[in-house]
């Protein structure tokens, strides 16, 4: 059975692992984080505990604050209050390069303005480690290993812009891994992928979590959350509405509040249509 077969037959049937109650020293911990963008409060007193070695999914409607949370962790959006710790260590006091070495970031999609081979794109992930990345250098082995981790060694010399959406997302995961980051932040990486490529990517993330990586991923599709998440956080208007297992978080009560929809089996309807 292929990966895409598995998702099309019944992706929701896989049981998601119940995350054990994490200690505050294990994983990524956001405490009372508030942040503003263009003078507008985008996060209000957000508290999230993303367990180490597990996948935490952020879900919520557009503008709920999923990307803002990832931006604050990366240091791209300054916070106005709160604390941010990774395995007990204070993230906010981390120097820029140290933070880039600690967190691997995967965007929604990347478009380079000129053709660049995949190996050079992956090597960008070594920037925070200094040294050279072109020509004979010490990062070549790391690039090869990172591409192997995402089953993309064969793409190394292909121009990045000519890859399919699924291939390019795998390459971006390799770029996030190449510097040795054990914590990955993914901002809606499946938004431009079809169902088959989404499953391939999510399976890869599960594998990485099993090997000890801590993963925080923003997602839009409920079935993907149920498939991949060990721990789920539902956001709405910059606040945490609830968190826990996917089944608990994606109950009708919660999704009606956040999205204004009601679930009927495998379909959804707007709340106003059901009244």
């Amino acid at each position, binding site marked *: 059975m292929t990966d895409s077969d598995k998702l099309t037959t019944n992706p929701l049937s896989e049981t998601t692992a119940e995350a054990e109650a994490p200690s505050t020293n294990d994983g990524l911990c956001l405490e009372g984080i508030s942040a503003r963008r263009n003078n507008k409060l985008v996060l209000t007193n957000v508290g999230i505990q993303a367990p180490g070695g597990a996948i935490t999914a952020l879900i919520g409607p557009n503008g709920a604050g999923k990307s803002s949370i990832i931006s604050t962790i*990366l*240091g*791209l959006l300054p916070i106005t209050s709160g604390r941010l710790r990774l395995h007990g260590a204070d993230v906010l006091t981390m120097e*820029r*390069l140290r*933070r*880039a*070495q600690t*967190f691997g*970031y995967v*965007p929604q999609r*990347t*478009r*380079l*303005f*000129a*053709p*660049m*081979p995949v190996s*050079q*794109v992956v090597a*960008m*992930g070594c*920037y*925070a480690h200094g040294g*050279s*990345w*072109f020509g004979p250098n010490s990062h070549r082995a790391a690039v090869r290993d990172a591409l192997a981790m995402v089953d993309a060694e064969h793409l190394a010399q292909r121009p990045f*812009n000519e890859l399919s959406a699924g291939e390019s997302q795998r390459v971006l995961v390799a*770029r996030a891994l190449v510097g040795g980051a054990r914590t990955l932040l993914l901002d809606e990486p499946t938004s431009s992928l079809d169902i088959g490529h989404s499953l391939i990517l999510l399976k890869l993330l599960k594998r990485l979590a099993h090997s000890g990586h801590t993963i925080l991923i923003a997602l839009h599709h409920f079935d993907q959350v149920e498939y991949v998440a060990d721990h789920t956080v539902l956001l709405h208007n910059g606040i945490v509405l609830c968190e826990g297992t996917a089944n608990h978080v994606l109950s009708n009560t919660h999704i009606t509040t956040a999205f204004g929809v009601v679930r009927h089996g495998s379909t959804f309807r707007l709340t106003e249509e059901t009244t």
Partner: protein
Amino acid sequence: MRFTLTLIGGVVALAVLSIIALNTGHGDLQSAEGETFYYLRAWRLSAAALAGAALAMGGVLMQGLFRNPLASPDVLGTTAFAVVGGQSALLLHVFAGATIPVFIPAELLLPIGCLLGAGFALLVLLWLAERAAGLTTVLIVGFLLAALGSSVGTFVTSFFRDQWELVRALQGFSLGGVDGTGPIHLALGAPLVLIGGIAAWCWSRPLDVLLSGEVEAAALGVDVTQVRRWVLIWTATLTAAAVALGGSAAFIGLIVPHVMRSCVGVGHRQLIPVSAIAGAAFLVGCDILARVLPPTGELPIGVVTGMIGAPLFIVVLIRSRRELV
């Protein structure tokens, strides 16, 4: 390998064109003044090579910073204001030559005016770059500065409509030309080009990471604000030096990085040195044509670069459409 071959090819082309440039022109090298002709040609050849290298490197920096193959050093407005600065210095010399301190040689007035003009535009840009949310705003203000500089230049020229020799000199300067350059110009321009070029090369790594966008580059550890600030400073330095040496020569900063990218790829560590060599060769070649094409006198070098550069750019653009965003 491709880098080495391109570099060797560029150096050979530059050497061949330099030999042609030294031996081409209206003067007779065998005459009693032959040695003087030789020296004059050597100075203008060096000025053309330095100005070409500076404009090409400036183009690489701008295309890398703005992630746009259509960007060129002109978009910052520093070139236009360097020209205005040069024209102002020319007028100052004509109308108030006696009041200029004696320690400033007359030959240096023009290049110093260029540097001051470019410096003014740079200050405006830097002030804005620190405050603007995105590069688009910097780009728009750069365009506006360029338009403003060009209008100011025309406005100033219009005051002296009756003095046709002065108008001709002002317009001639704005079209570019390396004739009349001497050791004193090179002593001012060469260090700027050298420092600007080496500094630009030192920013290669963050510029490469910036190819994937400012947000991703910041997430990968690049200090985007610093890169933006310093790339603007070095581009302005290079363009000011180029205008001071050879006036404003169009298209070099646009076409040379574009062609070189197809030879050595997008890595700035390779792209900057090969573009410098190719830009130098291109402008030396254009200077030869500027001297030999008209039966008498010379063409402004900006006219030649425009006549060659524009059609060449269209050809390159059609061949590499997929590079465009």
